[in-house]
Every structure is written in structure tokens, then in C-alpha cells.
């Protein structure tokens, strides 16, 4: 039986969809069978980032309202033999069309057939958030090194800690800019991790390649030469239980990340 991981943040635009696409891709590259579920009803875009928009026939709401079977709505990613699928969000429906109970049942069905279900959560803490979290076993909170994003991450972590079925959440700090951090114009990684006091599972640099790749419908994780790709692949391996210290950014900013090792439990 597989595991469901919700990718959430509170604040919008911090990289939930990008993270979902890339972590899902990286897990598939590790040989895991992955299903991406977009729960951002009305504002779907995981399909676009994955380059799968043109193949959509049915969506999440069609499945929940019985207009089709789950397997009919799943879009297969041709780049991976039979390892990566996407269940797209509905673009037109009202987000109250879905209930947490329905989501729970759907996710638990998907867990029969997949190793990992990656759930892309909408922004906010209302209805959409509750639907996204309903079927999850684990949670990853994404933040950027901005005060407002960290504040919202803190709020979300507080809510996640109340969910009995969800393991204590892990943290990804996205869009790190070394120069700004060094100058003290941005919260540093250490500061954020201490403040939120949950385990850090990865840091991703702010990289134009990420945007370019998303615009081409080719998640950056597929490109082995990019630093961001290595960061996402490392996150996938940490999800699988490997203990990997932070590498990609260390050479660029000696000192800044030295204290970080303790968050990974690495000596």
C-alpha cells in the first residue's frame, strides 16, 4: 500500500505546484509508481507544469461525481513507462463540489495502486486545504525566505499538527537567493528552520531554469545538470528514507548552512 503526501504552504505562489511536479517526477525517476493529484479546483496548473494539459479528458470532480472511473481520468506521463500519472483538477467547477470524505476515499483507493500519491494543495486554509489534507499520511510545507510566507507556513504547521492521521510535517525552503541571504536581506535557512522547528527536508535555489522548464511543460527535475534538479532529486531520496546532507548550495555559501546538518540528523 502506498503513501499520500500533501504539498502545502498557506501562502500562494511559493512553489507548491512546482514542488509537487518535481518531487513527483523525482520519485518516478527513483523507480516509484507515482500519482499526482491536483486539488486546486478552479485554478488547476499542475497539468501545465507537467506538460500534460492537452491530454486531459476527465478531471477530479468528474471522478467524484461518478461521470467516469478513476482510471479514465488519470493522465499518463509518456516520459515514464508506467510510473507517473496525473489526476487533474476541474477547471470549471466550484471548489465546494468536493468534500473531505470523498477525497479520503479517493486517495485511499489510489494508494492501492501507487507507491506515492502527491497532492498539490491550493493556497489558503479553508475548504480546499481541508480537501487536500483529508487523505494525506504525510505533509510537506513549502515556504520561501520571506517573512509573510514563513508566517503562513507556521499557521499551516499548527493546523497540520492537529490532524491525527498526518505525520509531523517536513519543510522545504524554496527560492533561496544566496546573495540576499548573505547580505541579511532575506531570512536565512537556519533562522527559518529554527523558527518553524520542524524537520527540513530540502532547500531549493531560486533559479530561472525552474520557470523556463515549467513553461515548457518539462519539470526541471528531468534535467540532471541543474542544481534545482539535484535539490528535488535529493528531496525524493529523503522522502524514501535516505539520509543525505545538503549539498547543492554548500559550496556557494560556506558557513550559512553549516548548522543545518543537525536538522537532518547528519553528523
Amino acid at each position, binding site marked *: 500500500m502506498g503513501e499520500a503526501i500533501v504539498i502545502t504552504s498557506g501562502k500562494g505562489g511559493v512553489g507548491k505546484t512546482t514542488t509537487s511536479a518535481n518531487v513527483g517526477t523525482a520519485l518516478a525517476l527513483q523507480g516509484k509508481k507515482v500519482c499526482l493529484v491536483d486539488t486546486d479546483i478552479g485554478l488547476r496548473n499542475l497539468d501545465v507544469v507537467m506538460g500534460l494539459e492537452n491530454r486531459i479528458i476527465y478531471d477530479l470532480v468528474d471522478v467524484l461525481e461518478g461521470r467516469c472511473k478513476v482510471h479514465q481520468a488519470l493522465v499518463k506521463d509518456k516520459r515514464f513507462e508506467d510510473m507517473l500519472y496525473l489526476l487533474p483538477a476541474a477547471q470549471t467547477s466550484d471548489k465546494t463540489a468536493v468534500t473531505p470524505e470523498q477525497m479520503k476515499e479517493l486517495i485511499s483507493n489510489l494508494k492501492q495502486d501507487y507507491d506515492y500519491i502527491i497532492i498539490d494543495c491550493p493556497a489558503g486554509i479553508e475548504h480546499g486545504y481541508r480537501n487536500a489534507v483529508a487523505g494525506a499520511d504525510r505533509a510537506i510545507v513549502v515556504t520561501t525566505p520571506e517573512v509573510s510566507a514563513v*508566517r*503562513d507556513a*507556521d*499557521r499551516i*504547521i*499548527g493546523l497540520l*499538527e492537529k490532524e491525527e492521521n498526518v505525520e509531523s510535517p517536513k519543510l522545504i525552503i524554496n527560492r533561496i537567493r544566496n546573495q540576499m541571504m548573505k547580505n*541579511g536581506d532575506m531570512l536565512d535557512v537556519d533562522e527559518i528552520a529554527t*523558527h*518553524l*522547528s520542524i524537520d527540513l527536508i530540502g532547500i531549493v535555489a531560486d533559479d530561472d531554469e525552474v520557470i523556463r522548464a515549467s513553461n515548457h511543460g518539462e519539470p526541471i527535475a528531468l534535467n540532471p545538470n541543474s542544481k534545482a534538479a539535484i535539490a528535488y532529486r535529493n528531496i525524493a531520496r529523503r522522502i524514501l528514507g535516505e539520509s543525505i546532507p545538503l549539498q547543492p548550495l554548500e559550496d556557494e555559501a560556506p558557513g550559512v548552512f553549516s548548522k543545518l546538518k543537525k536538522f537532518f540528523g547528519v553528523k
Partner: protein
Amino acid sequence: MKKTQNVTIKGTKDGLTLHLDDSCSYEELKEEIDHKLSDSARSREDRLLSVHVQVGNRYLTTEQEEEIKELVRQKKNLVVDSISSNVITKEEAEQIKKENEVVPVARIIRSGQVLQVPGDLLLVGDVNPGGTVIAGGNIYIMGVLRGVAHAGFNGDKEAIVTASVMKPSQIRISDCITRAPDHYQDDDKREMECAYINDSDQITVDRLQMLMHLRPNITRLEGGY
């Protein structure tokens, strides 16, 4: 048969003290108060005389207390200043216990969360920005205070807030409020500090060590060690 005295009146320099017997019926008491107070002829005085009522081991409900006050007030120049009893209800006792208890909590109070206790709070963990802790009594934080702390919630001006790192966005004690400077300097450690209301009715922050002089009553240990 000679009736025993259920109500005895004593004059003091502060006024009158009524000692009410606690084994007779409440109705008997009322009658006798009415009777006794009408007897005492002091109608020439126009000074208001305050009355202290001692009810011994009798429990009076709020309505009964009101009744007795009313009864006394009907007599000329008399007004009830206080009613004291040796007994309280279990509920009141539990409330008093709660208000004097230290509640330990090991948790992080995150943005949007509010933790409230009736007595003192011992928080082992941080209060993050946007988080709030409220206590009827003192607040002791073993961690970083970055959010809001409100001590002495019910009006206790003696209440204090302590923190291992004091970087609150706001501190409230009783009805006094103080807000943080707009920016904390990065090198400003703010370690081991306490906040209290000073003599000019304003919240001040000081070293933790000052506490034993400022609020000696915080120590509840009796005897030497």
C-alpha cells in the same frame, strides 16, 4: 422556653458587626435581624453606619446575601459593608485552585493559535509571531516569545511575563499594553528577561534576576532551604 440568641450585635469603631448563628434556619435569622435592628434606637445619628456580617459556617447564596443586605439597608443609616463566611462551594474552591495553579505546557504556539489558562502558565516552547498566550496569573516561557503574551488577564497588575528570549510583538499585563519596537537589532539578544508593571503604571522589561526584588510574592516556597 427561652429563645437562644441567633443574632448578636457588636459595636466597633468601624461600625457594627453582626454575628449570625449558623445552626438555626435562614428564615429565623431574617426575622431576628429585622427585629433586632429595629430595636436598636439610633435614629438621631445621621452618619451612615457600616455593618460587617459574619455568618460563621453558613453558606449564603448570592440571592440570600442580597436579601440580607436589603434587610439591613431598610433600617435607617445602616449599610452592609461586607459579608464573610467560613465556607465556600466546591466550585468556588476549584476556581480558586485553578487560578493559583501553574499549568505546564510543552508545545509551540504557532501563528493563529491562542493558549489560555486560568492561573500561571509555564510554557516549554516558543510563542511564534501571530501566536498568543493568555494567563490569569504569570506567564513563564522557556523559549522565545515572538508573539503576544497577556498576563494578569483578569486584572492582576502584579502579574509578570518571563521569557528565555524576549522578542514579543506585544505584551499585555492586566489592562496595560506595550508594543515592541518596530525592529529588533540582530545582535540584540534579549535573553532571560521579565516584564512587569512599574510604579508609573507602565510595562517595563528588565533582567530576570530583578524578579525576586520586584515580586517577592512569586516565591511560594515556605521556610528555608
